[in-house]
């Protein structure tokens, strides 16, 4: 039977079979299940077709929209902070006359910890009774009350942002540092001769040069944060009262705690759109920045 197939098709067949089995079929199955009221506890429900009812339900559900928007807010705040801190760190390390390699390695330490452990550590640090943060604030006399970091909704989101920024600023720092190290020095010198103050040199010469590197970091990190789950799950589990619920904690809860797999899959497909949009956006920015600096990579 293989005789009839042309050699290219025949040669690609093993790969196609494997990809179909592990990627395409599960994808189609999950897409299909998002059109059913599938519950893990009642397998027979997989065979009931309900059309777009799951989608209608989530798109009209404020809990979903709140999680969706909260994810975007978290993404925006965290990315901007990481960008700023990362740029600052990279500039500082780049100024170091010796020990750059050591500093670079130290800078990567936060990336070496599992997000789950980071979550536990920050959960402890922000604990209102025994946490380090409150302890420090009270010892310094800045407050005499225990601040309910993980209990107040806004503060909890803030605490999560802090944990995210702490663990991932180095992604920006490393990539921007790579850009700074690769940067030719002559344009910088030319700008000094052209009359620039150090700030103007940074603003008009250095920054445009490192922006493509920052956009690469943003693309990577936007996908990271858009699927943020572990840190939030550990620190607040979406609480208090869903005030820190993000898309994926909501999807996880719907799928496994509530066992509504069909509904959860529908949410997942909507949120994947978000990731795709961010990726397209940042790659556009990257392409524009690359043409701008005339990069040949």
């Amino acid at each position: 039977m293989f005789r009839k197939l042309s050699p290219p098709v025949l040669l690609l067949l093993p790969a196609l079979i494997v990809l179909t089995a592990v990627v395409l079929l599960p994808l189609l199955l999950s897409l299909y299940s998002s059109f059913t009221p599938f519950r893990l506890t009642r397998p027979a429900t997989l065979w009931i077709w309900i059309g777009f009812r799951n989608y209608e339900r989530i798109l009209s559900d404020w809990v979903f929209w709140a999680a969706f928007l909260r994810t975007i807010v978290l993404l925006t705040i965290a990315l901007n902070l990481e960008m700023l801190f990362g740029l600052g760190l990279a500039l500082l390390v780049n100024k170091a006359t010796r020990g750059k390699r050591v500093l670079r390695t130290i800078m990567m330490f936060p990336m070496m910890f599992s997000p789950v452990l980071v979550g536990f550590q920050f959960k402890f640090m922000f604990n209102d009774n025994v946490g380090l943060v409150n302890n420090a604030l009270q010892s310094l006399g800045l407050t005499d009350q225990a601040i309910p970091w993980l209990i107040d909704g806004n503060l909890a989101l803030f605490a999560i942002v802090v944990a995210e920024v702490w663990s991932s600023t180095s992604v920006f720092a490393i990539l921007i540092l790579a850009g700074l190290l690769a940067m030719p020095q002559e344009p910088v010198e030319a700008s000094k001769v052209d009359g620039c103050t150090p700030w103007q040199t940074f603003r008009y010469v250095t920054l445009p040069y490192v922006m493509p590197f920052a956009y690469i970091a943003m693309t990577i990190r936007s996908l990271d944060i858009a699927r943020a789950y572990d840190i939030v799950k550990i620190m607040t589990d979406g609480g208090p009262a869903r005030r820190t619920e993000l898309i994926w904690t909501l999807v996880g809860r719907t799928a496994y705690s509530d066992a509504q797999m069909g509904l959860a899959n529908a949410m997942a497909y909507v949120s994947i759109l978000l990731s795709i949009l961010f990726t397209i956006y940042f790659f556009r920015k990257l392409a524009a920045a690359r043409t701008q600096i005339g990069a040949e990579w």
Partner: protein
Amino acid sequence: MAQVSLKKLVKSYGAVQVVQGIDLDVADGEFIALVGPSGCGKSTTLRMIAGLESISDGAVEIGGTVVNDLPPRDRNISMVFQSYALYPHMTVRENMGFSLKIAKQPQSEIDRQVNEASAILGLEALMDRRPAQLSGGQRQRVAMGRAIVRHPEVFLFDEPLSNLDAKLRTQMRTEIKKLHAKVQSTVIYVTHDQVEAMTLADRIVIMRDGHIEQVGTPDEVFKRPASRFVAGFIGSPPMNIEEATIRDGQMVFRNGDSLPLPAQFAGAVTESQKVVFGLRPDDIFPSGHGLSSGGAGMIHEAELPVSITEPLGNETLVFVEFAGREWVSRMLNPHALRPGERIAMSFDFSQAHLFSAETGKSLARPVKD
């Protein structure tokens, strides 16, 4: 417009002195070339004038003011870099107008200056391109444009033509010369190419190992090199240089061959002194095929074997064997020569150079102007 003075200028990296106390006065509007082999400290000197390199000792004065501690932006200079150093994210127009924009000039003034500079350099058609879309020669022109829009007091050029191919280099050399004639600013031009230095500069500063070997007009450094180093460095093909010992009014070379001591050095040497004899290829020629510049009595003739010839069309470089090495000679109105053929060669001793083997300094009497 300003004169530039270097006073005992020193640059050291740790214990290593790369510039060892240079004194130099550049007049207002003068075109000075710093030339020397790589590592001689010429670029470092230029970068100290620009303010891109700190000054270890001594002083740089621009227009009578000591600028040692002024940042580059306050020195009123422009610099053209070897790698052009254009801003990759700006168009040609933005690159050229950048310094004026930083100086907060009104847009109309920036446009006027940029248009004027682009007209001088023939860049009008390229104004909206980015550096990546330009050829090497065009980038070089933009770099010059960026330098002239500011109307600086001093132009600094750091080997601006060394990344260009030979033809373009010649062309840009002419443009730089025209540009200087037009803007009349003081120019300090660093190059390792002695031809560039000779063709462009009013005066040439020949540097070696962090100090100045000689300062002079192209004519001076060519005709009256102060040292063996300058003699070997300036001129192409290079001067024939060979060590000899003085014996009975003869220069005896290491392999035993000898030449009579040129008459003008008779009083300058002592018996058995070690000297270095030098004669340019132009001043050795197959008899009847040269420019005879000296008096008739100054021509020494010898019959020598030809080892190889390099025809250049209007002239041929003839390599002849003498004193254990090959001597380059220039043959005008050439005809074909066979390797191994013995021909009559003329040595024009009126143009001969003699240096002390010990100090490397010229033994010629200083010329009184």
